[in-house]
């Protein structure tokens, strides 16, 4: 039997061609990608300057301590870029900035803050106090109001009276001093849990001041729960406990899936 032609029939819409290639209706072919182009929008033409690199940061203020914790996973789309990328950044001996969002914006923000703090140190001959750093971070973010840093921050430390102080931010510098906060991809999973367990909302038992060791154990539990449900959270948790004596860092392993 003779065939008139051996060209495959032209069909409409995405055609699945063997060998892992997918051709969409625009005629573009995605070659051999493990996700078969599923995470790509075939009609997107605009370049987006932002990417979301995932992760969750939480912060808890105590009577004389502050705890800041963040996971160490760096991802992009469905891929993991690094399992050991720290989201915490020490600004002075008494305060730490935790940021989730677009890693490149976070790095630039940290650079800018470090420079400003150095200048302050040179001008005033002392390191910046925690509430002052908090205000400066808010101002720095608002400077870029019309092309924001894609950075979701939590900032925590010890204030001048020795009490724990944590602040939560949005991407354009609105901030507030709170008792507990969380940000990043796991924010929705984690904030109501912190409300219940640490801020003692909707509980009928007695409210008590939690010692920092207990808070650290709670933070580990919180990250285990968050890691279960959020794909961008996992690998390891870096927990920093800030007291007037300094900063203690604890690493805790999470599931790597």
């Amino acid at each position: 039997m003779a065939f008139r032609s051996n060209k495959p029939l032209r069909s409409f819409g995405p055609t699945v061609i063997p060998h892992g290639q997918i051709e969409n209706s625009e005629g573009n072919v995605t070659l051999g990608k493990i996700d078969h182009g599923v995470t790509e929008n075939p009609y997107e033409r605009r370049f987006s300057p932002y990417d979301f690199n995932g992760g969750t940061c939480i912060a808890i203020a105590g009577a004389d301590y502050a705890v800041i914790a963040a996971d160490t996973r760096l991802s992009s789309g469905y891929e993991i870029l690094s399992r050991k990328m720290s989201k915490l950044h020490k600004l002075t001996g008494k305060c730490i900035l935790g940021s989730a969002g677009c890693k490149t914006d976070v790095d630039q923000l940290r650079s800018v803050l470090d420079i400003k703090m150095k200048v302050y140190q040179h001008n005033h001959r002392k390191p910046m106090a925690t509430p002052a750093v908090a205000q400066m971070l808010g101002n720095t973010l608002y400077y870029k109001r019309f092309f924001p840093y894609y950075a979701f921050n939590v900032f925590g430390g010890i204030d001048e009276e020795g009490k724990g102080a944590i602040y939560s931010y949005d991407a354009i510098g609105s901030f507030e001093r709170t008792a507990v906060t969380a940000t990043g991809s796991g924010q929705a999973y984690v904030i109501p849990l912190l409300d219940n367990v640490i801020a003692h909302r909707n509980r009928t038992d007695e409210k008590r001041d939690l010692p920092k060791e207990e808070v650290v154990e709670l933070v580990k539990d919180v990250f285990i729960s968050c890691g279960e449900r959020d794909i961008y959270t996992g690998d390891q948790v870096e927990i920093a406990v800030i007291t007037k004596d300094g900063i203690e860092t604890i690493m805790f392993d999470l599931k790597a899936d």
Partner: protein
Amino acid sequence: MNVYCPSTALPLLLYLFTLMGLARAQQQDPMTLNGGSLLAMAGKDCVAVAVDKRFGSGPQMVNIAPRLAWTPNPQLMVAFVGLEGDVQSLSQDLQTQVRSKLNRALGFSTSTEEDKRRRYISPKALASITSHMLYRNRGRYYVEPLVAGLSSSSASSVCKPFLCAMDMIGAKSTSQSFVCSGAASKSLYGTAEALWKPDMDKDQLLRACGEAFQSALERDCLSGYGSLVYLITKDGITEYDLAHRND
């Protein structure tokens, strides 16, 4: 590297300003338009189902009425959340379907206790019927139902908890711990994951379910205005009205 360069910033700025300038009425997601949330948790031989009471239209609250829950028998409950019109439609449809199947198979009589007990549908069967009904109408019901109950085998008196949540086209997801649906589902996943423990007794389960539900509802604008927790045990269903913020 920081990508701030004027040539890419300008189109972005113009795009942002255009969005802000046009007062466009955006189509709201039908699943979250009316709000509402559900949580079901399993304990030792008992199940707790928490429903909220907010019925709204976007940001506006319309009525304070608990989410619809149907109890075909004293150890089984199916609760619905989503677009309220579809919730009412689907629940009526489901009740009619189940009743007509039982009538066809077992007759119409419900006069004796034995007759009533013969008409008890198992949780797995109810979940199946609901799933098939959603898939048959593929994508037209914006409802995410939740089936929760105790499946007792006639041989033993042990009641195994059964929990099953479904998406709007009927994909079942059963769990031994908890299931949740609705506008606050992300927050509910967070709190329930942490507060659930295996083998909780009735009081512990009520507390865990209630606390997880309330904490999650406080962080969601589209759910709230009160909550009811139904505790299902082999003795029947008890309703608890929880006290909390009325928003």
